[in-house]
């Protein structure tokens, strides 16, 4: 049986008060396991991004609880939540992933500055950048890279801290079909080979073939699972 890495239990997230009360997520329970790629799909405004921010400890649920590696993280302080994110979660976002004035190599050195230990070994690092085909881009600045190259560097950057969980927000939005297949395969390989839990929030149906689970969110509710 696969180990549960991240789980939501009866999570509800509400914004505003009284007549302006908006329920972004309603009674959502989900579990993400090591070695699996999970897609969260749904129309715009369905609550996917809210779900991702709660999974990443960027927001706390109004009701319910979030468990990371078995520990409840629903009510952590900002500092503690930052620490958990840095050590256990790798974020891949749609844009602005890379610091524009750092070379590709420096994007990783920045991580070493704030988390000197338990990052990928040198072998692990070279393996990942070779897999992503960015080994020749280490001295380039993000502005010198194509959208696809930038996204691959961002993925490598997310893996660099050797996190147990990868959370990705529309990671293939800027990529063509060939590149989507590469990135999808990469997420699948990493989840399966490295026993990571990969959670991808996306509109992109092209990623379905690489996923182990697909969850659909509509109007803040988990509507069905594949």
């Amino acid at each position, binding site marked *: 049986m696969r180990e549960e890495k991240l789980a939501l239990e009866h999570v509800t997230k509400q914004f505003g008060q009284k007549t302006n009360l908006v329920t972004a997520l309603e009674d959502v329970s989900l579990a993400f396991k090591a070695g699996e790629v999970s897609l969260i799909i749904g129309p715009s405004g369905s609550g996917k991004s809210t779900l991702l921010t709660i999974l990443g400890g960027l927001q706390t649920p109004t009701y319910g609880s979030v468990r990371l590696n078995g520990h409840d993280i629903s009510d952590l302080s900002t500092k503690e939540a930052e620490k958990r*994110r840095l050590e256990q979660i790798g974020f891949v976002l749609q844009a602005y*992933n890379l*610091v524009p004035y750092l070379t590709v190599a*420096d994007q990783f050195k920045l991580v070493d500055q704030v988390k000197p230990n338990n990052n990928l070994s040198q072998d692990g690092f070279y393996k990942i950048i070779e897999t992503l085909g960015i080994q020749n881009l280490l001295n380039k*600045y993000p502005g010198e890279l194509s959208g696809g190259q930038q996204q691959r560097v961002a993925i490598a950057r997310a893996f660099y801290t050797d996190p147990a969980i990868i959370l990705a927000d529309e990671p293939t939005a800027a990529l063509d079909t060939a590149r989507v297949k590469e990135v999808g395969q990469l997420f699948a390989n990493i989840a399966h080979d490295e026993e990571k839990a990969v959670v991808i*929030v996306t509109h992109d149906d092209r990623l379905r073939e690489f996923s182990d689970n697909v969850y659909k969110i509509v109007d803040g509710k988990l509507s069905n699972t594949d």
Partner: protein
Amino acid sequence: MFLAIREIKKEKLRYGLILTVVVLISYLIFILSALALGLATANTAAVDSWQSKSFVMTKDANGNAGQSLLTTKQVDQLSDDKTAKLGITPVNMKIGGKRESAQFVGMNNEEYIAKNLQLTKGNLPKAANEVVLADSVDKDIYGMGDKISIGLSHTKYKIVGYAKNATYNTAPVIYGELAQWRIIKGVSDQFQGSVVASKTSQSVDDKALKTYSYQAFINKLPGYTPQKATFGLMIGFLIVISLIVITIFLYILTVQKLPNLAVLRAQGIPNLFLAQNTLFETFFIMATGIVVGALLSALTEFGIPDSVPMAFDWGLMGLIAVGLMVTGLLGAIIPIRVISKIDPVSVIGG
């Protein structure tokens, strides 16, 4: 530091421009301070060299030694072995066709002020028609042994020496015998001098007289206090301007970087790390700007003509540099606050 160094290295033009502004502001502040100090010194150098604690003059003179006339009786009442009588009056000195404004200071060679006078060349006046000039005068015009006319006196005065630190109210001082002061000023012999200086604090019973401390005497020098206040205000405004400039610059830079900083926060990069980088960035800009500004000021000191009264006190410059640095670091408060308020959620989804 890691982010700051790389950002400055990558964005050379952007940081070069703000550095130029900081260099110019600090250069201007240093030059203004040197001018203020130079003018202050030109006002007070002679008074400082007298090493006196208090000065008595007539009340009606309102602290202006050139307007004070002390009678023989008043002078006799005040005189003891710790006092020195001085006759001070603004004059024109003439040689050939040249005229120059100066301050004649008549003194007694036996009293402490004359004894303490530091001569760079020559000797104290030994005869009525001998004078010592400030060594800041142009010696090609006022050469040793040359004879000059002073004020209303018909006597030709021979230059027998030059004195160090001999400017009073920005004019060069002519030291001569006290008796000559009456002739040069054109007053009757019932007056013995204009000021009685003392090494100690003096108290006077005569209601027509007033005692001024060293500082009060300096502050009463014509134009000295408004000049000092003007320079002080200019320097203060420049420091405030530097605060505003650095704050605006850092604020704009921070706002431009907000999406990237939000991603870094989402990735778990601590707030403190980002704040420290902004603080280091500010420190780097200010320190480099101040050092370059100080170097330019030092170079200016060599190139500036003697007629411009500039004085560099590196201790004072150090204090100003510290003030500028503190001001710059204060300017980082708003950007750091902006960073601390970044909501990483803002970069997720849409």
